[in-house]
């Protein structure tokens, strides 16, 4: 066999007689998917262990034959190697690619296997697709159209199992729909480290259940809903809210922490219904925390700002020579860049960003609450890591060195500035939500939330990732980049229009060496890894998370 292994370390596998080159040991389900075909499966998940219990991925497997007596390769009459197919089918998910392997995914036997498995799976399935939230993204529905009979030969009464079982604060279980794939069990055990789910009883009475006295309540519980191939596990937040075929999915980035989880924001007619993870093998695999999925509620929160001043009123404030800017590491790279340009063009005393830390969970929530701390550093808005308290700014307000503040989406009272200090200065507040700072502000300009605009964040790995506009902002709210660009044009009329992320990037890629050659349109959905070595000396607060190891220097600096 070794002669088949060539220099690149790849081997040849034949899928339906088509040669495919792959790494030895590639899972057959993934391998077939990589050539644009599909082996139907329920229990297999690329990020979980293989359990091989759904039997849907049965295929025919064969190897080139060898004569038992002589060990010589067996040949067909035309001289090609004779392929000896195993008499019984094998599960593709439990098979790893080996050199010379032949796979039949479309033969009559394979088709019959799948039809048989489908018929068994549908015996006890309630077929309540009209009320099931999974309808439209249900694997059972999809494969039933491919391999289903269309009618049932089962005349006996279906097994009755518990319905509307509350598994935890966010997850609901309908046991009748369950196909016993055990993905949720494996996820809870292997990824979430919260081994609370399991099967009880045997045969067709097998029932998914939670350990007595426990709940599926870890912060990753909704991932079980995502990976459930049928509608057994449903999200209590999304349950019965909207059918999935109405939803438009927009790629976005979660702003919960500096991990930068890739997400899909599902909306219909400008209203967001749910957020689900988007696969990125370098960042979040296929997972995301439950807490990040609820962030869309901020869009329609009661304290959302939608009315305020006009951008034309801002330049009067920028004329002060005791001006300071408080940006936000929750703002996008583009906004921070324009804010920095604005700060340079006006007589700014200093720029500040409010740092926020927390205890991460070592999985997909990092210690840095701000999603774009590295973005603020990269565009030069700040030089060093932001502190949680703006004591320096407070001192400058008290001493009278600062009399005007431009605040972007931060509540300064939460960062150590007292209401009395805020009363001493004129404040121009750009923000999505009202708070103590917006109430103290002379001019409030409502802005868009992350779901209503496009831009980029730089996560803890120095990976530049973009998010797109999922829904239009509230009526009357100007686009942030347009606002900043107009202010900049007012002060520096020679500056071109930088009203879109694309336009900002045409400048950014020239100005910042780290961003060399990057365009907004050309940025792939998975993002691009930047060279963050210029900031190696900074003691970033992040610890280990799923695909991130803190640099050694950082750990020492913390210690």
């Amino acid at each position: 066999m070794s002669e088949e292994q060539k220099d690149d370390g790849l081997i040849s596998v034949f899928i339906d007689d088509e040669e495919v080159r792959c790494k030895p040991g590639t899972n057959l389900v993934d391998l077939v998917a990589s050539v644009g075909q599909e082996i139907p499966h329920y229990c297999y998940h690329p990020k979980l262990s293989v359990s091989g219990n759904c039997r849907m991925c049965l295929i025919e497997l064969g190897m080139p034959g060898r004569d038992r007596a002589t060990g010589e390769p067996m040949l067909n009459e035309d001289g090609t190697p004779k392929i000896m197919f195993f008499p019984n089918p094998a599960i593709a998910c439990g098979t790893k690619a080996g050199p010379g392997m032949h796979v039949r995914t479309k033969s009559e036997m394979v088709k019959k296997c799948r039809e048989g498995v489908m018929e068994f799976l549908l015996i006890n399935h309630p077929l309540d697709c009209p009320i099931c939230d999974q309808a439209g993204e249900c694997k059972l529905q999809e494969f039933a159209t491919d391999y289903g009979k269309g009618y049932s030969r089962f005349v006996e009464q279906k097994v009755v199992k518990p319905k509307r079982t509350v598994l935890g604060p966010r997850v609901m279980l309908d046991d009748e729909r369950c196909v016993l794939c055990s993905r949720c069990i494996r996820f809870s055990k292997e990824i979430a480290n919260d081994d609370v789910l399991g099967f009880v009883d045997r045969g067709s009475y097998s029932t998914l259940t939670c350990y007595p006295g426990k709940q599926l309540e870890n912060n990753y519980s909704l991932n079980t809903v995502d990976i459930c191939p049928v509608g057994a596990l449903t999200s209590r937040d999304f349950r019965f809210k909207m059918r999935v075929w109405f939803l438009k999915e927009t790629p976005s980035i979660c702003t919960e922490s500096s991990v930068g989880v890739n997400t899909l924001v599902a909306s219909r007619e400008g209203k967001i219904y749910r957020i689900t993870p988007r696969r990125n093998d370098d960042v979040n695999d296929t997972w995301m925390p439950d807490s990040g999925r609820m962030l869309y509620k901020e869009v329609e929160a009661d304290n959302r700002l939608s009315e305020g001043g006009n951008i034309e009123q801002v330049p009067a404030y920028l004329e002060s020579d005791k001006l300071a800017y408080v940006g936000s590491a929750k703002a996008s790279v583009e906004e921070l860049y324009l804010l920095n340009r604005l700060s340079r063009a006006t007589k700014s005393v200093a720029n500040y960003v409010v740092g926020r830390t927390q205890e991460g969970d070592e999985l997909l929530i990092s210690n840095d609450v701000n999603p774009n701390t590295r973005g603020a550093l990269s565009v030069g808005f700040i030089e060093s890591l932001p502190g949680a308290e703006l004591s320096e700014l407070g001192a400058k307000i008290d001493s009278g060195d600062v009399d005007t503040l431009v605040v972007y989406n931060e509540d300064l009272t939460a960062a150590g500035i007292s209401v009395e200090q805020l009363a001493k200065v004129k404040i121009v507040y750009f923000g999505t939500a009202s708070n103590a700072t917006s109430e103290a502000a002379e001019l409030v300009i409502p802005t868009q939330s992350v779901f209503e605009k496009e831009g980029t964040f730089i996560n803890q790995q120095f990976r530049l990732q973009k998010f797109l506009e999922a829904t239009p902002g509230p009526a009357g709210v100007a686009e942030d980049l347009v606002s900043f660009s107009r202010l900049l044009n007012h002060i520096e009329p020679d500056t071109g229009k930088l009203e879109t992320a694309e336009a900002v990037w045409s400048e950014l890629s020239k100005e910042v060496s780290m961003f060399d050659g990057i365009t907004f349109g050309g940025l792939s959905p998975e993002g691009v890894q930047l060279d963050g070595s210029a900031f190696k000396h900074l003691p970033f607060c992040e610890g280990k998370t799923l695909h991130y190891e803190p640099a050694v220097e950082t750990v020492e600096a913390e210690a």
Partner: protein
Amino acid sequence: MAIKKIERKPLTLAEKSYLPQIASGLKITLKNIFRPTVTLQYPEERPEIPEGYRGVPTLVKDPNGREKCVSCQLCEFVCPPKAIRITPGELDEESENAHVEKGPKEFEVNMLRCIYCGFCQEVCPEEAIWLQDTFSVSGYTREELVYKKDKLYELGGTLPDDHHKWDKKKAAENSGNPH
């Protein structure tokens, strides 16, 4: 384009007199006088609506009085003029129909938009929406012509359900697990 001139033939004496034309016209009139009338004195007289006629879409209840719609929103999806708007909701766990789990919180059919195509009836997996024989829709305001759930049930009434799907489901649940 070239113009082709056609010579008009001079009228014959019979044509000039108009008498044959009047006679043939009278013949048709006389023939129809003795035929049965087909005109209806609308609106006092109403036509008989044939089966399968596509009039106003309505929601129906099953013989137990359960609303058949489970708000799957397929009609909303298929509706070409986007006349249907459903707000799905969960049925009260205390209610008699709790085993159905889902039902429409609100169901609107905008009759100003409806084109009576019948796709909603065709696509409905629960046979809950039917185009019935009402064909004249009128109202004083636009809002009035957006039919709400109660109006749709009032128009729809009860239609027999041959499948008793949900009754069977409930019976199975009550009999429990044979295990």
